[in-house]
């Protein structure tokens, strides 16, 4: 059997999910996912081994024959999609259990069905080279994701978030469509991305496509759907959304960059770099303000998309400036970060989902002390948090290190402008890293450490093994990339090679990566030895337990003595207030208030970009649309008049030869 017929077979078998119930349905879904994974991954692996893979399916779509093709870029994305979709499906088995009583069987079947089709749609998106089937698969991906986000449709905010997503995706879709039309009618020759190489308007077309894909990827200022859709979706869908769906936007951009003529790489690279730096820094700054754990993670997705974009933009500029080594390192760093982010972000969403399942709240100020009730979930969240902050010995460090390494190696190689560009990249990465540490120490401490802050955590207990195992698998891959980066970068290099066909790839940096892996290994060894030594010492001494030092004041509830997320973020808010859009509401103490009574303090953060770029124009549009509602009078006579007027206008226009 060929790969494409297996894919087709799993498509045809997918309605079977409606016939099954409970555990069999779960296993059938897993089996179908595995079929898709085997079929697509085997093709991807053969591509990585140097064999080209491409088939004509013989199916026609609007007169265009569908051809499936894989190059290194597509193959890489196939692997990323498969891994995250598998862990998501696996994790959902336990996560959806509580919904079995509240949701009807058909709803759950439909959920699994759309999840499978999302998987298929994404695989097809990265496999088809022609524009028409690409757009169809792209739309299918958007629609299935929309249905998945609206899973809890009885909650108004879920529907609102899903609709917000749907509308914004279609605005992006229009940009991609116009971009492709521009390519076709301005000398590109075909309705596909490869036409960028031939069209007379490559810059305009590329910018249109860039905007279209930026909506999907969540680059600022096109990110405003993300912080709504991620919290509203069930956690395995949030993990998949942040892990791979937004990466499809990055795929689109990377696909277009391949065909963009090299003389435009400087300007377009600079554009991507600037947008990415803004996304990276602002994303993490907004994240610090969030008190909804999934919304916080959504802003971190924007930040990480920024890091990926810094790699891509710097790679393009590096090539244009004549530094193939810098280009290789930056591209490799950016592309590896796609994989890395899909790993640690899905891990963070899954473990945050476990917390939500047990406590029924995402509001961090109601949580606390969960590390004792959910030790494994806490450990996995911590692993994800360390990885996303780019700390060794985990995977996030490797991708950021590649970009740093490229930048530091070339900072003295060019003139002042180059040095300033590279210093800006270094500084942004350092700033993002520092802010991410600030943010994740906040969220981890408030959710998992200290004492419980409300009754929400009372019934919490460790989640089932079927939810922990997929997270453990992701954790292992995270550690593996941190310890043997060379193995993974070897494949990434093939992807990066697509962008630098005429440059011989340098290999010295692979040695450096090996040393990084060794240093990380030594660190872990050292830690293990120290822990052993400590356990020997602990056996000899007496250990006592007591309450936390309260400065001699033990009367109050320990939960009230703790730092909260608001207070943790407070000293940063004071620094960054001008760009944050923070609103603080409180009743101040009166001078005569000797015995203080209850006071309230509330702090909200509004995304200024959302307010100015989405809400204001949207409201203005709504205003004029409402004005036009006078035509909808509900009287038949008026509607007949409209019909007559229309006919008269058409008649007049054809008489005047306008039509």
């Amino acid at each position: 059997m060929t790969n494409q017929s297996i894919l087709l077979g799993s498509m045809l078998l997918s309605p079977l999910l409606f016939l099954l119930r409970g555990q069999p349905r779960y296993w059938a879904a897993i089996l179908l996912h595995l079929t898709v994974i085997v079929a697509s991954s085997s093709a991807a692996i053969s591509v990585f081994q140097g064999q080209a893979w491409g088939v004509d399916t013989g199916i026609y779509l609007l007169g265009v024959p569908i051809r499936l093709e894989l190059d290194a870029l597509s193959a890489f994305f196939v692997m990323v999609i498969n891994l995250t979709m598998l862990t998501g499906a696996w994790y959902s088995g336990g996560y959806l259990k509580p919904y079995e009583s509240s949701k009807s069987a058909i709803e759950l079947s439909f959920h699994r069905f759309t999840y499978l089709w999302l998987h298929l749609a994404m695989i097809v998106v990265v496999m088809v080279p022609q524009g028409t089937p690409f757009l169809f698969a792209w739309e299918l991906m958007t629609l299935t994701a929309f249905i998945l986000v609206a899973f809890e449709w009885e909650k108004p905010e879920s529907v609102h978030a899903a609709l917000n997503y749907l509308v914004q995706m279609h605005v992006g879709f229009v940009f991609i469509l116009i971009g492709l039309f521009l390519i076709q009618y301005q000398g590109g020759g075909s309705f596909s991305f490869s036409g960028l190489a031939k069209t007379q308007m490559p810059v305009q077309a590329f910018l249109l496509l860039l905007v279209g894909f930026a909506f999907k990827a969540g680059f600022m200022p096109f990110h405003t759907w993300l912080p709504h859709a991620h919290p509203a979706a069930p956690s395995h869908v949030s993990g998949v959304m942040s892990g791979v769906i937004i990466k499809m936007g990055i795929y689109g951009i990377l696909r277009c960059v391949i065909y963009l003529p090299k003389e435009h790489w400087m300007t377009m690279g600079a554009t991507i770099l600037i947008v990415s730096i803004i996304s990276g820094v602002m994303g993490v700054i907004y994240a610090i303000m969030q008190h909804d754990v999934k919304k916080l993670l959504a802003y971190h997705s924007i930040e990480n998309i920024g890091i990926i974009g810094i790699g891509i933009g710097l790679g393009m500029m590096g090539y244009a400036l004549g530094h193939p080594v810098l280009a290789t390192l930056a591209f490799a760093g950016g592309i590896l970060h796609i994989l890395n982010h899909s790993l640690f972000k899905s891990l963070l969403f899954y473990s945050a989902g476990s917390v939500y399942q047990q406590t029924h709240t995402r509001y961090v100020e109601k949580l606390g002390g969960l590390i004792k009730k959910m030790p494994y979930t806490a450990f996995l969240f911590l692993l994800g948090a360390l990885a996303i902050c780019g700390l060794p010995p985990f995977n996030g460090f490797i991708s950021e290190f590649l970009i740093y390494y490229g930048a530091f190696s070339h900072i003295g190689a060019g003139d002042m402008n180059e040095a300033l560009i590279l210093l800006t990249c270094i500084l942004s990465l350092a700033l993002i890293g520092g802010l991410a540490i600030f943010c994740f120490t906040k969220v981890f401490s408030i959710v998992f450490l200290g004492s419980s802050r409300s009754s929400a955590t009372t019934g919490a207990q460790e989640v089932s093994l079927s939810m922990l195992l997929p997270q453990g698998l992701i954790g292992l891959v995270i550690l593996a990339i941190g310890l043997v980066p060379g193995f993974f970068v070897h494949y990434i290099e093939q992807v990066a090679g697509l962008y630098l066909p005429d440059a011989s790839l340098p290999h010295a940096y692979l040695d450096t990566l090996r040393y990084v892996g060794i240093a990380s290994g030594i660190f872990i060894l050292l830690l293990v030895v120290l822990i052993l030594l400590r356990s020997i010492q602990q056996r000899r001494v007496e250990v006592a337990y007591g309450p936390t030092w309260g400065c001699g004041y033990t009367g109050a509830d320990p939960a009230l003595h703790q730092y909260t997320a608001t207070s943790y973020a407070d000293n940063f808010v004071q620094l960054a207030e001008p760009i944050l859009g923070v609103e603080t509401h409180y009743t101040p103490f009166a001078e005569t208030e000797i015995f203080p009574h209850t006071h309230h303090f509330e702090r909200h953060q509004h995304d200024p970009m959302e307010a100015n770029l989405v809400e204001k124009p949207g409201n203005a549009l709504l205003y004029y649309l409402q004005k036009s509602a006078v035509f909808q009078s509900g009287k038949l006579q008026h509607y007949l008049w409209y019909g007559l007027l229309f006919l008269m206008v058409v008649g007049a226009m054809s008489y005047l030869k306008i039509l």
Partner: protein
Amino acid sequence: MSILLYLLYTCCALLIPGVIAITKAKLSGRKGPGLWQPIYDILRLLSKGSVYSTTTSYLFQYAPLVNFAATLLALAFIPLGDIPGLMHFQGDFVFFAYLLGLGKFLLILNAMDTGSGFEGMGANREALYSMLVEPAFFIVMGSMALLSGHNSFVDIFSQFQDTSQYAILLGFLGAYILGQIAMVENSRLPVDDPRTHLELTMVHEVMVLDNSGFDFGIIMITNSLKFGIYAGLLANLMVPIWLPLGFRLGFALLISLLFGVMVGLLESFRARNKMARNPQFILTLSAVSLLFFFTVMIIANRI
């Protein structure tokens, strides 16, 4: 050779707290403790049992060890001129900086694990300050990489002094910035005062308030090692590379001790910043390091 260097830095690191204490004692007219007193304190702590808060979890017990391991490994990257550290590879200072970041991350969690408002305050302040100081280090290293054309500690420091006749000047400016970074990273004046007696105004001291016994000893050693790391970096900038080997090692030891004396002097004559002024102070450091960067660009004929 690298092992000898590592041992030298470790010794310097362990001596610096004693030197600081002696300096401060002499300047305030006290007899003061002996040079070895901080080491005795650490040894005493290491043999003791701990009192754990019932609020804390397993993280609380292992976080100081992670910080210690990270700092021990970070020290292994510090070279002396062309003598490499125990470990070196291209871009090693990025690894170095992020390794210290890992230690700090865990130490913050260690403080937050106690569920105490005081420790939250300290951890929160330390998180903010170390975030703000990070860019300064990267600008200094970026400038050095630009000037020398290399990207690892040992390559940079072995080439740095030969790059131009102004290198010694740059060395002193770099040493000033790194010295200030060291003060922030080690929570000393003017950002934090280790002598302060009120929990509300502490930063690092209040952060480790609930640690005791062995774990507290580990935290004390880690603090000393951090001094050793920065003293080592200062030595790299100031020790002339053409001196014979023995003199260079001696010079490095001298600089470490002088660094301790400087800290003692500063802490004796300077008052601490107002807490709200600290971010501004630390950001000024980044501004000074940008000045360093532009000076380097002028010297390297890039402007």
